[in-house]
């Protein structure tokens, strides 16, 4: 390993400052050094001229359309296979869902469903950290637009306070690389998180499927073009009761808007 060289070290830190890769404390230290050292100030200026010149004269140019098309075509399902599994309407809907959200980026499942493992882990972290939601509001007109700007799906934020499940807030769960809108409801001292999934990855049935992972209960089901997963630490009967209320409320809202 090489010896510590203060000049080389300073050069690295000047570059890191230019690339906005220094944290506030180190940036402050460096700013003080620069203020006292004209050589460092001049070096930073030269680095910045070079960086700017590269960005201006070597811009990222678009790939040729033919390349773009052939790269996209590689990922298209083979037409025969698609016709074999999907009626055309479903194929279009799935295509739309992929266009909007993309499928989840997941590795092979290690003993269990990766979506459920991820959402249950998310719930456990939220519980343990006390950071149950990213936006606290019982007003669905606040929660819905907040989620809409952060996750691609159009979640129906329904308040179920009159049924005993006040809306506490919303947060974004992340499965793979996909942000998923999540509503958080309160039940006494407990929380229930309902995450909406794009249909492209949803394999659930209309009948809710119950699961237990790491002591948390989950129900997973599908309504119309959306899949849902509810995770909570309440018992499974209570969770089923909540899901019935939630589905009824979503159904009512849905019939009003369609």
């Amino acid at each position, binding site marked *: 390993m090489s010896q510590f060289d203060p000049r080389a070290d300073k050069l690295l830190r000047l570059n890191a400052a230019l690339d906005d890769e220094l944290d506030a404390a180190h940036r402050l230290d460096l700013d003080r050094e620069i203020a006292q050292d004209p050589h460092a100030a*001049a070096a930073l*200026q030269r680095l910045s*001229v070079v960086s700017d010149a*590269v960005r201006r004269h070597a811009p*990222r140019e678009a790939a*040729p359309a033919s390349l773009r098309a052939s790269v*996209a075509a590689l990922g298209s399902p083979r037409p025969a296979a698609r016709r074999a599994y999907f009626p055309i309407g479903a194929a279009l809907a799935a295509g739309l869902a992929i266009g909007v959200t993309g499928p989840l*980026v997941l*590795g092979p499942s290690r003993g269990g469903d990766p979506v459920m493992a991820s959402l249950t882990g998310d719930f456990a972290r939220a519980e343990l950290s006390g950071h149950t939601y990213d936006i606290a509001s019982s007003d669905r007109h606040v929660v819905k637009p907040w989620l809409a700007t952060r996750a691609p799906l159009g979640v129906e934020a329904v308040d179920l306070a009159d049924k005993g499940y006040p809306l506490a807030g919303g947060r974004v769960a992340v499965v*793979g690389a996909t942000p998923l809108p999540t509503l958080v409801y309160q039940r006494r001292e407990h929380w229930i998180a309902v995450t909406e999934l794009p249909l492209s990855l949803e394999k659930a049935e209309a009948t809710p499927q119950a699961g237990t992972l790491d002591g948390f209960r989950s129900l997973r089901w599908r309504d119309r073009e959306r899949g849902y997963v509810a995770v909570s630490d309440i018992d499974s009967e209570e969770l089923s009761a909540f899901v019935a209320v939630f589905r009824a409320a979503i159904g009512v809202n849905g019939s009003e808007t369609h």
Partner: protein
Amino acid sequence: MISEAARRRYQTIVPPYVDDAYALARWLSGSSVDAEDIVQEAALRALNALETAIVERPRAWFLRIVRNAALTWMAKNRPKAVVMVGGVDDLAAIETFDPAAGERSPEALLIAAEDGDRVRRAIAALPTPLREALVLREVNDLSYREIAEATATPIGTVMSRLARARVALAKTLEDKS
């Protein structure tokens, strides 16, 4: 045989970064025609890898495949161009600016930096490890962490290569004016 799941994952991971891939391949190979072949090859490798790969940072992940495909391509077609300079990762070997440069007028550098052809020639003349770090940073706008992933290199090495690339560019541009 590629599964439907892998194809769906491919669609979110690869096509959005085809411009980034093309830019990197062009700077590594020095040729737009070769860059197309390299990106095609990389896309195919990515599709196959997506049967099992776990991808956290899609852009860095795909650019790593592009970079490897480009290096393989160059080793096969233009072996002399791949110069892995000895001691390139040695921190002490970093050529720092001459302290006297602080007193020199930055005018020569500023003038040279306006000449697009000169700047591009100077980038193309950098040794591959320095050039790829510079391109990933300035052209692809990757963070240090992403560059480290894309080049399979520790972050300290990324930093020293980037610093050396910029110092070398500054000196080339100044000296030939």
